[in-house]
């Protein structure tokens, strides 16, 4: 049995501008000790998915009935708030994006790491503090006993992110959700933090859901990748297979948009257009108006997840009609002047 099994997760926001279907029928599994990447552009629903797992979605957002989040045998969507709090931070925890703002400026870092222990476990302040210092050492903070007395502003960005990771891992959770943990950091620090996460994962046997828009990070850190677009999963594959033979045109576009060493092109390829607003997903395939292969069927028929290979699925009609891949054309995106830019 997988550690986490998400079934038909739908998180809708009842906004003044209409119903925003931010996460719209997402299903996936994470095994014990596995690292899974969740990628997609801003606005594709990956962060809302993460918040939904911890039931941290605030009104006007809500997890729709019929969604199931089965963690360690229990359905989190039906738990009461108190049991849910006991899970947050202890069994499932979260590493946030901005190490600058994820720490409270008015408390020392030791205090903040120890707070997580005190929230979850009865015991003396001193024990919690000792545990915090130990954890700070584990995440590679030099002379942690002294450093624990420092305030966040006295630490560099990389060090702060290590503190945030210490807070997330101190209760040895079974699953860590890392929401863009390296986005705000320098590239060299990024590599260190990823290395740290990998090392801790191997040592503690924690599963990690790594949320990112950076496929470079994914390639380094995860074993399986889930690609989201328009509030749903569009492709899921083992990481090597995804890089070798991405099936979905959106994934293809993401891969082309990655800078590559030795590449002499002046400009990076981009995917034309932007993610549509979640209040108005396009009919049919949600990617069809940005897709270079789209044909009539794509505008009318919503594609299911087609099985491509072992552990590889793709939400694209190309699986049904692979010959269409030869018919590449300019996508149908609406240009700034409001005219359709090209025909097929």
């Amino acid at each position, binding site marked *: 049995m997988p550690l986490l099994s998400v079934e038909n997760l739908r998180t809708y926001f009842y906004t003044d501008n209409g119903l925003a279907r931010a996460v719209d029928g997402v299903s996936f599994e994470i095994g014990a000790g596995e690292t899974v990447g969740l990628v997609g552009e801003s606005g594709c629903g990956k962060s809302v998915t993460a918040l939904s797992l*911890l039931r*941290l979605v*605030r*009104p*006007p957002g809500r997890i729709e009935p019929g969604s199931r989040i089965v963690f360690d045998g229990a359905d989190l969507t039906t738990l009461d708030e108190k049991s849910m*709090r*006991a*899970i*947050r*931070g*202890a069994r499932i*925890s*979260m590493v*946030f*994006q*901005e190490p*600058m*703002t*994820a*720490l*409270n*400026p*008015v*408390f020392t870092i030791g205090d903040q790491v120890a*707070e*997580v222990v005190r*929230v*979850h476990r009865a015991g003396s302040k001193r024990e919690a503090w000792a545990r915090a210092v130990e954890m700070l050492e584990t995440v590679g903070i030099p002379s942690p006993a002294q450093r624990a007395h420092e*305030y966040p*502003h006295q630490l560099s960005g990389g060090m702060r992110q290590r503190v*945030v990771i210490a*807070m*997330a891992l101190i209760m040895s959770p079974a699953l860590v959700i890392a929401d863009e943990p390296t986005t705000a950091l320098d590239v060299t620090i990024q590599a260190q933090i990823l290395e740290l996460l990998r090392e801790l994962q191997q040592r503690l046997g924690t599963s990690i859901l790594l949320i990112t828009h950076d496929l470079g990070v994914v390639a380094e850190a995860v074993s399986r990748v889930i690609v989201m677009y328009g509030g749903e999963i569009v492709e899921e594959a083992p990481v090597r297979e995804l890089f070798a033979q991405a099936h979905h045109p959106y994934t293809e576009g993401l891969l082309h948009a990655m800078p590559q060493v030795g590449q002499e092109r002046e400009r990076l390829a981009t995917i034309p257009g932007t993610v549509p607003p979640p209040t108005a997903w396009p009919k049919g395939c949600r990617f069809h108006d940005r897709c270079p292969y789209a044909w009539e069927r794509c505008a009318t028929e919503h594609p299911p997840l087609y099985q491509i290979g072992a552990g590889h699925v793709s939400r694209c009609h190309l699986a049904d009609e692979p010959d269409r891949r030869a018919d590449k054309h300019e996508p149908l995106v609406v240009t700034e002047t409001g005219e359709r830019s090209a025909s097929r």
Partner: protein
Amino acid sequence: MNNEPRTIPVLTQLARHRSARWGLGVIAVLVIAALVGPLLSSYGCVEQLDIVNLKNAPPSWSHPFGTDQYSRDVLTRVLCGARISLAVATLAVLLSTTLGTAYGLVAGYAGGNVDHTMMRILDGFLSIPRVLLLIAVLTLWHPVPLAGLIVLLGVTGWFNVSRLVRAETMSARKLEYVAAARALGATDGRILWRHLLPNVAGPVIVAATLAVGNVIALEAGLSYLGVGAPAPTASWGSIFFEGVEFFAGNWWVVLFPGIAIVATVLAFNVLGDALRDVLDPRQLHASVPLPERMTLEQPSA
């Protein structure tokens, strides 16, 4: 980054702030005078010395502020009044600030319909003129005990604080470390107490300091109207009120409590402004070097 802590401690900054030193100095003198003054005086707060010979005596060596129509020593009365006026104002502001902060924190943190309802209720309270309400209640409840006066001043004074706190809470709620605390299993109470309250403390301290001055003036006004501190209790307002009848001849009975009121209110306002400079770095203030764009606007010769 405006949510980074200032590296210089607030007290040090205050000590360097010129008008803060003035404000603090005046308040310190007043507090000391209120505490030890009546003990040093050889007269009692309500003691009538000699109703025949010492009635309405002008300032002299033995009575530096003169005496009033009941032959009471005005200096002693002003010192005793300092106790009452400062204590009433401080306690009332403590009460109103606590109420306002709690209300604002809950409304701002809860958000949604709870916030909406709480704010409409607050709008209702705000539509009642405070002074008129106080006069009405105090006229019916006469003579009011000091504790009653403090409670009344407190429960009618928290509306603006709670608006301020609510606004600050709403912006602090969006900070990532608040979300992080929730994600790590903290209860709402813990988040409010540990993560949101310290964030709103700065503006609240400023507002409370300004409110002390305000309430001293308000209490003086109410006593002047005869509905404040009960006679014969000496508060600055009641001394002033009793003296004003014979103002033409006995200027000293009015002048000295008047000076005390003005000096105190001024000192609290000055201190409040200084605290705002120190605690609220978003506001531009004079002790900060002018931003560069200002130097560009120098007139060309």
